[in-house]
């Protein structure tokens, strides 16, 4: 479990905080999605939680160990996978993993066996004799995951790890994270791909300009934000649009219409349907729902209508 309390980071004098007073728990057996625009503070939060950089204020506890004051104990239970893994370019993968394994006290044949198992698990065993500079970005990412798993940590932090992966890679990462969750690990996943967060996350934390502005539970996802009416009108024309404009703001795509900014209560939505039918319009789909995570997210971070 990772507990983040009052976490702040200011990179330089006279600069606005990269993150400000963040409070967050990543529980065991949970996947916590972390969403935010570029520069919102996701990577800063993760880098502090991993012990790469120091916080300006607040603290991060990893299974009760302060990542600053008790770095060695805390890091034993941290597995970090960055967006763009960066290793010694001339290192041989097995040797480098042995080096990393040494920090966990794993040595000799135990280390060799574990490294072989992990490299096979992530399909890079065949490339074990290549220098890391000759690995593709995807291979480096898989190597990075293998490296993160060396000490069998209880907590994993994935920083935009899904970026740059092909659909198969995304799928296998999704399954991998779900397996981690099943194994009781805590997973902190930052991503721009909100649909993936929706797919795997138990909760999603949204960060904007360094401040945590919302934490959503999984069961909140289907009904996020303002209600909209989604319709499909087979004989859609200007008259139908004029009717809809009385009840809200219609967005037309072919025969599909999304009616936003409703001028009625969602429970009274049948009035719209009735008027359309009376006017001889053939309504083949009529449903009331939330905006969806993406719209909701963009609403929250104030970037709707383009970044």
């Amino acid at each position, binding site marked *: 479990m990772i507990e983040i309390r009052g976490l702040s980071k200011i990179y330089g004098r006279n600069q606005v905080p990269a993150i400000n007073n963040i409070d967050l728990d990543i529980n065991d057996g949970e996947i916590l999605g972390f969403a935010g625009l570029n520069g919102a503070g996701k990577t800063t939060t993760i*880098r502090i939680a*991993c*012990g*790469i*950089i*120091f916080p300006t204020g607040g603290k991060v506890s990893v299974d009760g160990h302060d990542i600053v004051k008790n*770095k*060695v*104990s805390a*890091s*034993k239970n*941290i597995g*970090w996978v*960055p967006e763009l*893994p*960066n*290793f*010694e370019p001339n*290192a041989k993968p097995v*040797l480098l993993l*042995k*080096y*990393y*394994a*040494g*920090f*966990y006290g794993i*040595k000799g044949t135990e*280390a060799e066996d574990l490294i072989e198992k992990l490299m096979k698990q992530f399909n890079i065993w065949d490339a074990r004799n290549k220098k890391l500079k000759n690995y593709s970005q995807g291979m480096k990412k898989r190597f*990075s995951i293998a*490296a993160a798993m060396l*000490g069998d940590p209880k907590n994993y932090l994935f920083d935009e790890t899904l970026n740059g992966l092909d659909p198969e890679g995304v799928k296998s990462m999704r399954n991998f994270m779900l397996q981690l969750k099943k194994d009781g690990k805590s997973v902190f996943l930052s991503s721009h791909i909100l649909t993936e967060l929706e797919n795997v996350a138990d909760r999603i934390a949204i960060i904007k300009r360094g401040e945590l502005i919302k934490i959503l539970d999984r069961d909140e996802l289907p009904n996020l934000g303002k209600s909209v009416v989604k319709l499909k009108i087979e004989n859609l024309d200007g008259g139908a649009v004029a009717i809809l404009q009385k009840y809200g703001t219609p967005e037309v795509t072919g025969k599909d219409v999304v009616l936003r900014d409703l001028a009625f209560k969602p429970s009274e939505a049948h009035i719209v349907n009735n008027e359309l039918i009376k006017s001889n319009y053939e309504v083949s789909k009529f449903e009331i729902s939330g905006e969806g995570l993406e719209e909701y997210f963009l609403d929250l971070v104030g970037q709707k209508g383009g970044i």
Partner: protein
Amino acid sequence: MSPILYDLRRTLTGKFTILLIVMIVGFTALGAHALSSNGSGNATPSNTYHTDVGYYHSNGTYHIVTYTFDGYGTPVKDAPITLSLNQTKFINGTSNSAGFYNATYVSNNSKIPAVANAYLPNASSPISIIPGFAFLQTNMSRINATTSLQITLVNQPGSLVYKMYNLFYVGPNDSKSPQLAAYYGAYNTSRAAFSAYPYLNESKMTSLGTVGGFYTSSLKIPLTNANQNKTFTLGLFNTTTGKLVNSHPPAALYTKISQTNQLTIVFAFLSGLYGFFVPIMAIFSSYLYYGKDRTSGVLESVATRPVTKSRILASRFVAVILSIFIALLISISVANILLEQYFGQLLPLSEILGMVGIFLVVSAAFAGIVLLTSQLSRAQGTVLGVGIVLFIVFDLLWSFLILDLLLFDVFRLSPFSPSTGRITAILDAINPAGFTSLASSLYTGTFTGGFNSYSASAVGITLVSVSIVGAIWLIVPFAITYYLSRTRD
């Protein structure tokens, strides 16, 4: 694998480290070879010249032959030779590539010319010339009325301590020497000090075999450590009659150099070499194996492991210093072995480790500053640039910038004033490369600052002050970096 072992292995097997170690060992070996061949300083065998003279008299003409050679018995060409009679010079010439000069003088009386030498024209001064037999008439060693044989003690090639005999024969009509039986006698110093050396008798001496058929030749007596306190005589006997032809008076053939002198020469030689290579290795190793990793982000994948950043820093620093230690230990040991023949003895391990320690202080200082720069800057170019500037300023241009420009030109200090010596010593203390000069001065007791030499203690160079300076350079840059690694990103 233990992380420190990995860091050490990575540093030691890096291409740059291997290249530097090969260069350091190689240049040290070449330098040691050159040192043993050419000596160090002006008063060494290769810069000491001898001229032996011989002649034969035939049909009213003296045929005079001179042979000029250096302290190793190597022929010297272009040595000016002057013949004079009654202090009037009348023949001038120079030795040929074999060291010989031939002249004739027509005279039927017994007055024959004297020979004098001048300084070699093209050699750097001062050159010590040891005249041969200046007056042929009185000092010539003769086999018979018409021939002469000279025996001169010279150093064995490539040795400062082992000596041998150089033979020079002049016979009638340029004939070569007859066969001679060579014998030597070893004496305790007290007995060999007798003005007459009493044991020039084949039966009481040890045979060296026969020599003959030469104009010049050399004879070596087998020397061991037991010969250090002995003197030797050499006797050359007619192989037919057994009669003594010529001899060399008692002389020490193996004179041990003091360890202080040996260390001073070796340290001076190594300082020039390592003063260049050690800072380069320290600067670039600490950049390549820490600074570059840190600035490029490679170190982050290590920093997320169960280890503190300060521990990573310490591990890399130790690996860099250990790799330099190994390079120094190998190269100084190689030099020591190569120079054994020259000095007649090996430097003890304690002296070698002392020298290694001095250069390690220098390397720790330079490495520490580069690590500190890596801690303060995230730009690779800045870190590398600072390292290069450090090397140029502290190592290459320090004397020019600080002495010539600052002290003499800007502050108008006299190069000969005592205060210049003290200020130069202080400036050496604030220069990481200057520690070798301070340590060397502490050992020799002499410090050169400006154009003068001073007593080391007179300019503040004492065991305490040098130890403090060394400790500061060894510890402080790294300690500051270590502290920053615990508090700064």
